[in-house]
């Protein structure tokens, strides 16, 4: 089922931070939402999630850092059970083990609290919780910025493998076009509260139309190296 939302907008203290925006996301599609900080991309992400949840879609959110997703006083098992109950799913050890294996956290001690796990494992646990209900859309907000690069790269690779061929669409919100470029088929560029460009990745990377997109493309990586 294609996800469709119309006229998402947001204001903060009288100032428009997101102008009316329409979005269509096909099943299994990979979309990158890129823009400078303050361009309104996180706001769009949050509005999208809250609107879709209100419409009864199944959407999951992975915040930037595990600190924004896990309660330090509660055990990992508690988090997992709570997530299952929130989705009205029966407790299922096989499903849990399958997800944990796919995200390489099967060795984690569920009786521990979040800070008993490494940050990389915490983040993958959050992703596992997000994937628990096989959502129509998974929204990831700067998923790599709170992690060390090696750990972040591993996480993105595991997630790519898990999502491949499934119907869960992915929206990757990031300021880093270099990160998004390799993982999404469609790129949306935000600037000052508006989606100013929306094109297949190939086209946007080779022929960016707007100034915001051109700036992102020009600074998409630190160095180009010959093969």
């Amino acid at each position: 089922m294609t996800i469709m939302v119309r006229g998402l907008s947001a204001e903060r203290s009288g100032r428009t931070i997101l102008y009316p925006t329409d979005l269509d996301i096909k099943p299994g599609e990979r979309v990158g939402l890129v823009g400078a900080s303050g361009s309104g991309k996180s706001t769009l992400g949050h509005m999208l999630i809250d609107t879709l949840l209100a419409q009864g879609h199944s959407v999951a959110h992975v915040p930037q850092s595990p600190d924004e997703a896990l309660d330090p006083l509660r055990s990992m098992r508690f988090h997992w059970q709570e997530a299952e109950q929130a989705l009205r799913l029966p407790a299922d050890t096989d499903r849990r083990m399958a997800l944990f294996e796919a995200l390489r956290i099967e060795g984690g001690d569920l009786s521990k609290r979040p800070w008993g796990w490494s940050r990389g494992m915490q983040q993958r646990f959050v992703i596992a919780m997000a994937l628990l209900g096989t959502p129509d859309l998974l929204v990831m907000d700067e998923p790599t910025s709170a992690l060390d690069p090696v750990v972040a790269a591993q996480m993105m690779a595991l997630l790519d493998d898990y999502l491949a061929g499934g119907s869960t669409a992915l929206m990757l919100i990031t300021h880093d076009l270099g990160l998004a470029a390799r993982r999404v088929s469609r790129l949306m560029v935000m600037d000052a509260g508006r989606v100013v460009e929306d094109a297949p990745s190939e086209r946007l990377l080779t022929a960016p139309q707007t100034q915001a997109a051109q700036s992102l493309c020009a600074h998409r990586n630190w160095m180009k190296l010959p093969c």
Partner: protein
Amino acid sequence: MTRVVFGLFLRACVVLTGAAMATFALLWHAPGDPALAVALARYRTVVPDAVLDHVRAEAGFDAGYWPAFWDWLGPLLRGDFGQSAVTGRDVWPELVTAMSYTAPVALLALGIGMALSVPLALLATKRPGSWLDRFAVAIASLGVAIPAFWLGLLLILLFAVQLGWLPAMGARTTAHMILPAVTLGLGVAASLTRIIRSGILEARGKPFLPAFLRRGVSARGVQRHHIAPHAGVPVVTVFGLELAFLLEGLVTVEVIFSRPGLGGFLVSAISARDFPKVQAVVLVTALIFVTVNLLIDIIYRALDPRIGEQNA
């Protein structure tokens, strides 16, 4: 965990020893002749020097500081609190009687404090900044500022003198407990309300809460399983301080309401320089204090084990 508990236990022992040595030193070095104070309390009149010498020798005041200290400490380690310097009767049974009057009032006060503060704090945090919240904060601040002796007298004037609903003096019936317990309980409620309120407000601002709501956890579930424990951590911490406040308030309140309890026991013992009695009260209160704080530390660590990890 065992190591942590052992460490806390060791700390408790140090505190108790310190309390014992400090009170002994204070009493010993206080100005005036202790023998004279004991003799006055015993015979209620001026006595000749020969009697004073007798009292001095009997109470061990003439042996010097350290022998007197060891004389007192030795039996104590075997569980013997000794005899009153004034009456010669065993201290322990008298102390137990005093405590049997004090403990119910203390517990009732604590109960009143909890029963008032939790709903008040919940009500105040429903809409932070609303008039209700401000009113609760104002009342709580006022409650912390008002001393127990003044509040006690006001309550006596209103409920005992004007309205005649409740008895003010003594401890004959259960009704006699109400005014002293309310006096203390209001003070406890005032400070607890402030702590619980700020604990809830702080817990509500935790950055991970929106993620739980987006995950589909109900607002009620978030409140019960995530906000409540975070709000509880500071409350548990403050409980130890609350107990100190309560013990301190008890002495004043018992004197105001002429209740025969630890307060009266302590005041009369101090004015008579009755060393064994004073020491017994101090040690027992210190023991209660240390035990409660030990429990609080353990609960605190169970609630939030990060604290233990950092200390270990």
